[in-house]
C-alpha cells in the first residue's frame, strides 16, 4: 500500500559510512501506522500562526531486515528563524518517557516534519535525532498535507548520509527510501469507519450495526459481479477483445468447488447456527427474568 504516487526513482541503498559503526542493517523500508499519520495531521492543524511547519518524534520498532515500523508519533516544540533553529529537547525527552511508560516496546526511530521542504535546518534536526537513536540511523518522514496548491498530499521517508570531505552536522544528503501505510487487518474496520465519515457530506457518521456493514459489503460484491458480467457479455458479443489474464482470474475465482455445500454441509452448519442463536436468546431472556425477580423478591416484613 504505497503512500505516494509511484515514482521511477531508484531507491539507492547507501553503503555503511566508514565512520558510523551501525549494528544491524540501515533502514531500507518504512511502514507507517495510521495513528502516527493522523497525529501528525492533527498537530499540523493545531500549529500556531507563526509556524511554517511542525516537527515531532516518531516512535516504532525496528526489525533485523532493515524495516522500520512507525507506530506512533508525538509533537515536539521547535522554532525556526532565519538565524537559528531550536528544538525543545527537554519536552521531547519528557514525552518519550511518558510514552515509554505505556508502550515500552516503541522506541525513537526518527522524526517527522510537514511540508516537503528539506533544508539546512532539516539536516541539523536530523543530526540531533541521529544522536537520540544511536547506534541506529534515524529516519525522517516528510508529510505533505496537501494544503498548498500544486503539491499532492503524500508521505516520503528518508535516511541521511553525511556529505563533504569533513562531515558537518548542517550538511547531509537525504536519501529516499520506500514508505508504506500499514495496519493490521483487524484495525481495518476502524479505518472504514473514518472513510465512511469523511465521505458523508456532514463529515460525521454513526457507528452502524453488523448487519448494515454486511449489507453494504454484499452490495459492493453484487456491483462487482455486475461489472464483470457486463465485461464478459461485451466480450462474448465481440465488442471488446477478451483479455486472457482476466479470463483465467475469473475461472479461478468462479470455478471453486462447492461440493461441500451441496453435500449437506450447509444444513449441518445451518442447524448449528440456529442452535447458537436460540441459546443466545434463551440466555438473554433468563438473565432479564432473573434481574426482574431480584427486584420482586422483597424481604418479607
Amino acid at each position, binding site marked *: 500500500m504505497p503512500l505516494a504516487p509511484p515514482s521511477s526513482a531508484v531507491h539507492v541503498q547507501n553503503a555503511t559510512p566508514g565512520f558510523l559503526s551501525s549494528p544491524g542493517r540501515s533502514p531500507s523500508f518504512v511502514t507507517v501506522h495510521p495513528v502516527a*499519520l493522523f*497525529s501528525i495531521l492533527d498537530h499540523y492543524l493545531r500549529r500556531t500562526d507563526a509556524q511554517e511547519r511542525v516537527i515531532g518524534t516518531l516512535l516504532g520498532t525496528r526489525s533485523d531486515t532493515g524495516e522500520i515500523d512507525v507506530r506512533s508519533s508525538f509533537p515536539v516544540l521547535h522554532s525556526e528563524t532565519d538565524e537559528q533553529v531550536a528544538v525543545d529537547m527537554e519536552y521531547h525527552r519528557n514525552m518519550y518517557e*511518558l510514552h515509554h511508560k505505556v508502550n515500552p516496546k516503541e522506541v525513537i526511530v526518527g522524526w517527522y516534519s510537514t511540508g516537503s521542504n528539506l533544508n539546512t535546518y532539516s539536516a541539523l534536526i536530523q543530526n540531533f535525532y541521529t544522536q537520540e537513536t544511536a547506534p541506529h540511523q534515524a529516519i525522517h518522514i516528510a508529510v505533505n498535507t496537501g494544503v498548498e496548491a500544486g503539491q499532492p498530499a503524500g508521505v516520503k521517508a528518508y535516511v541521511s548520509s553525511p556529505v563533504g570531505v569533513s562531515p558537518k552536522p548542517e550538511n547531509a544528503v537525504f536519501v529516499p527510501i520506500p514508505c508504506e501505510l500499514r495496519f493490521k487487518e483487524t*484495525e481495518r474496520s476502524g479505518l472504514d469507519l473514518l472513510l465512511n465519515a469523511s465521505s458523508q457530506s456532514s463529515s460525521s457518521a454513526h457507528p452502524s450495526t*453488523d448487519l448494515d456493514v454486511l449489507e453494504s459489503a454484499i452490495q459492493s460484491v453484487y456491483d462487482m459481479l455486475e461489472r464483470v458480467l457486463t465485461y464478459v457479455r461485451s466480450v462474448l458479443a465481440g465488442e471488446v477483445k477478451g483479455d486472457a489474464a482476466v479470463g483465467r482470474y475469473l475461472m479461478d475465482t468462479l470455478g471453486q468447488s462447492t461440493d461441500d455445500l451441496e453435500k449437506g454441509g450447509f444444513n449441518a452448519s445451518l442447524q448449528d447456527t440456529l442452535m447458537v442463536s436460540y441459546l443466545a436468546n434463551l440466555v438473554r431472556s433468563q438473565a432479564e427474568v432473573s434481574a426482574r425477580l431480584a427486584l420482586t423478591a422483597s424481604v418479607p416484613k
Partner: protein
Amino acid sequence: MAAPSMAAAIAASLPTPQSAPTPSAPSYEAIPASMSKVIDIDVEIPLTHVQLDGLVVSKIIKHSRESGGSSAHGLLLGLDFDGVLEISNSFPLPHHFTDDDDKSMKGVARYQASMLRSLKEVQADDSVVGFYQAMTLGSFYSQSLVETQAIHQDKLRHGGVVIVHDISQTARGNATFHAFRLTKAFLDAYKKNNFSTDSLIDHRLTFSSIVEEIPLRIRNNPLLSSFLETLQSTSPAVGNTIPPQATATSSIPHSFSVLNLGTANVTRNLEQIVEAMDSYKTEEGNLAYLQRQIAREKARADAYVAKRKEENATRVTQGLAPLPEEDVSRLFKIPPEPSRLESMLLLGRIDAYSKSLEETSGSGLVKMYAAKAGATV
C-alpha cells in the same frame, strides 16, 4: 485491589471543574453575543451527542489491539459545545498495578498531570472529559468501570462519559464505539453505597438501567478527510494494461473481511457465557448464604424478644416488676444486607455476551444463505 486505586488516582489528579473555555476565543476575552447561546459557562445545556474525532478512533483501536484483552483504558480530552461533547484527543494510561497501591497510584497521577501539561504546550485540548475502555465480546460491566465513572460524574463538567470499544467486533469488520454514563438512579444508590434488595427496588435498578447511552458521531477534520480521500483514490500504476482497475493501486484497498464466514469467535463467546454464568451462580450462592444467616439471626432475636415478653407477662400476673426490655441489636449481631451490585454486573455481562452471540449468529445466517445462493447459481 487494583481497581479502587486507579479510580482514586484519577480522582486525585482531576482538575476541578472550571468555567468553560471558549473554543473560538481565549477564555479571558468577552464571549461574543453570537456565541453566548452555545457556550454554557454554568453547565446548563444537557449533552445530546458525543462527537469522536478520527484521531481518537484510531488511537483507541490501536491501544486496544496492542494491549489485547479488556485491560486497555485511557483518558479522553476535549470540550463541550452546544450540547455536543467534542472529543478531540486521548491518551492511554499505563496498566500495571502490581506493586504497592500507593506508589502506583501516585505514579498514575503524576503521569497524567505531566501528560496534560505536555499536551497543553503544543496547543492540544487538555481538559479531561471522560475515559475509554476496551472490551471483548460486548461486555464492559465491571466494578472498576463503574467506580471510575462515578468519580468522574462527580468531578467533571457534565459528568464525563465513558466510551467503550469492542475489540472482537472490530476484528469481525465492524468497528463500534458506544458512549455511556451512569443513570441517576444508579448513581444515587452508589453514593449511598447501598445495593440491598430494598434499595434496588426503590431505584428500580436492573443491569439494563446501570448506564444510559448517549448517541455518538464520528467526525473527521477536513484535513484528515482530504488526506484519507487521497489515500483511498487509486493511482494508476506504471505500465498500464487493460482493464485499468486490475492494476491500479491504492493505499487503502477494498476489504471484504466482513464476508468471512469465520465462526471462530463463537466457541470463545460460548465459553465466556458459561464462565459468567458460573460466577453468577457462585455469587448467588454467597448472597443466599448471607440471606439465610440474616434470617437465622433475626429469628433468634425475635424468639428472644417473644420469650422476654412472655416472661414479663407472667411476672406481671404474679405481681412482680417486669424485667427491662433490652436492646436486642446489642445481643444479636444481625449482619448487614449483602450488596447485590456484583451479581447485577454479572447478569449484565451475561446479557452482553449473549447479545453479541446473537448478533454473530444473525449475521452468520445471512452470510451462509448468501454463500449458498452463490453456490447454486
